[in-house]
């Protein structure tokens, strides 16, 4: 940075920054500090606090419902990642071909669920997976000519697969867009050279395309994990606010919401929030380290 600008420039800079800084301090920095102190308190609604120290965290570690929520959230995260991302990448590979007819219309179609927004997709999903009335059971019954399939109770008996299926419908096309952008980074000359050298499709994928796509793929994996671990709206709307039978559909953020806003213990809710935040930050750090290591070895 060179010498500081004139007085006028400095005054303007602060005026431009002021609205943001004020809002940032009040609605970001202050709540962040408060969340740490809240986590050490028990509360009944927003205006009573009892200092309990690390008890919230001790309780949390022994809380079977919290562990159930973690388990469900991880099942959803892994389930949706392992199906979603390969599918998104495969679609991107196919739709990247210039010789494929109608590829822009396919792209738009696969991306389109994203336009509905998570909440409204959740409502549509809830309706589509209803037993008897829902689109899914009706299609199954019609395709397999079996009336019994109308009775499958997805929302109660198979909530996890239902969540994963809806998330596939919503996110595959979205992640496909990232991969399509990444495929622009594959050097065409390298591909041709590999082809001339006799590399088959599999070897070209492995040695030319994957290395070029890797930075974006790492980013997409991190982004999807962060999003999945904070899953809330979809199960909340499908299960109408509770965790479903045996809390089979309860996620970490749903548990935070229940504790904070249904039971009124913002302290315990903050402890749940910190547990989740630590998981997310750890993930991000692991990811950053992996990227660094690769850059160092490259």
């Amino acid at each position, binding site marked *: *940075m060179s010498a500081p600008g004139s007085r006028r420039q400095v*005054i303007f800079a602060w*005026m431009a920054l002021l609205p943001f800084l004020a809002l940032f301090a*009040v*609605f970001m920095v202050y709540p962040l500090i*408060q*969340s740490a102190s809240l986590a050490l308190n028990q509360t009944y609604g927003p205006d009573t606090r009892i200092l309990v120290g690390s008890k919230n965290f001790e309780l949390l570690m022994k809380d079977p419902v919290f562990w159930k929520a973690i388990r469900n959230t991880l099942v959803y995260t892994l389930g949706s990642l392992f199906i979603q991302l390969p599918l998104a990448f495969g679609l991107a590979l196919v739709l990247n071909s210039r010789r494929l007819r109608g590829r822009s219309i396919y792209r738009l179609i696969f991306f389109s669920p994203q336009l509905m927004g998570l909440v409204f997709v959740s409502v549509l999903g809830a309706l589509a997976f209803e037993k008897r009335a829902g689109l899914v059971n009706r299609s199954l019954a019609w395709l397999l000519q079996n009336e019994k399939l109308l009775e499958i109770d997805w929302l109660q008996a198979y909530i996890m697969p239902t969540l994963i299926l809806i998330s596939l419908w919503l996110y595959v*096309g979205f992640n496909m867009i990232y991969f399509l952008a990444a495929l622009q980074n594959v050097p065409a000359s390298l591909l041709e050279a590999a082809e001339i050298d006799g590399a088959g499709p599999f070897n070209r994928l492995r040695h030319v395309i994957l290395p070029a796509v890797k930075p974006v793929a790492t980013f997409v994996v991190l982004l999807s994990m962060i999003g999945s671990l904070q899953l809330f709206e979809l199960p909340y709307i499908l299960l109408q606010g509770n965790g479903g039978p045996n809390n089979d559909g309860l996620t970490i953020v749903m548990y935070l919401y229940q504790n904070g806003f249904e039971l009124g213990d*913002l302290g315990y809710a903050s402890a749940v929030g910190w547990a*989740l935040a630590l998981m997310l930050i750890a993930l991000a750090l692991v990811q950053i380290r992996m990227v660094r290591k690769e850059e160092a070895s490259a």
Partner: protein
Amino acid sequence: MSSHPRSRSSRMLTHLVLIVLAVIVLVPYAWLIVASLKTKEDFFSGMFFPPGDGFLGVAWSSLTLDNYTNLIEKGFGRAAINSVFYASASAIFATFICAATGYALAKSKFRGRTLMTLVVLGSLIVPPTLLIAPSYELLFDLGLLDSVWGLLLPTFAPAFGVFLFRQAVQQSVPDELIEAARIDGCSESGIFMVIVLPLIRPMIGAFLLITFLGMWNNFISPQIVLQTASKQPLSVAIAQLRGVYKTDYGLLMAATVVSVTPVAVLFLVLQKQFISGLTSGAVKG
């Protein structure tokens, strides 16, 4: 991509798979729209159109807009107006505030700029869920619970917006242009309004759309902050509708159609600008 099918049959197979997937994506829309036009009695007759003796064996005359008029009677129009207002206000303020901040952090020279940039960008790692409980307490202390300001103010300063605009300014606003304007006697705010804002127009368009969609689809904030039914946006109103009229499928489907159509149309109209804005920010300078 050269790993693509050469022979006719494998090309047909590719299209077949793509078409099946496209149908899986599209059929729920068709089901949603048709079912929103069916009466309660017709809902279970036929997966899509109610069977009858009209053209193509469909009872066209039994389709109705009753579900939509019913929605208005249930006060859903109010929720639609709220959504438009919240999303527009949030988008306009957040875009202007983030553009100004991004510009100052990218181009102005003052003490503490590096530290400030680090703090703002560092805050991107804070998961929003961590702030849910303390923000509720803060809004309670400020007396902003169940107030529109309590919902809107926290959305006016998203740190990722500062990040995007700082990058856009660094890439598309040359220092020489700013210096030249200064020498010509242009005021600092004049430079920002007349020179900088037009240069980062693609990012402004993209960010308006991102923040508009973000607020339109926001569920957890209005659900927590607002209590009065007449203040709720579509996202919360539709979830409550499902709580009360769980089996009135036609009504719920009409509500979904009303909630998503404006946004989908907006996106389709603006998609070119949206994509060019985002990619101009993504290219490394």
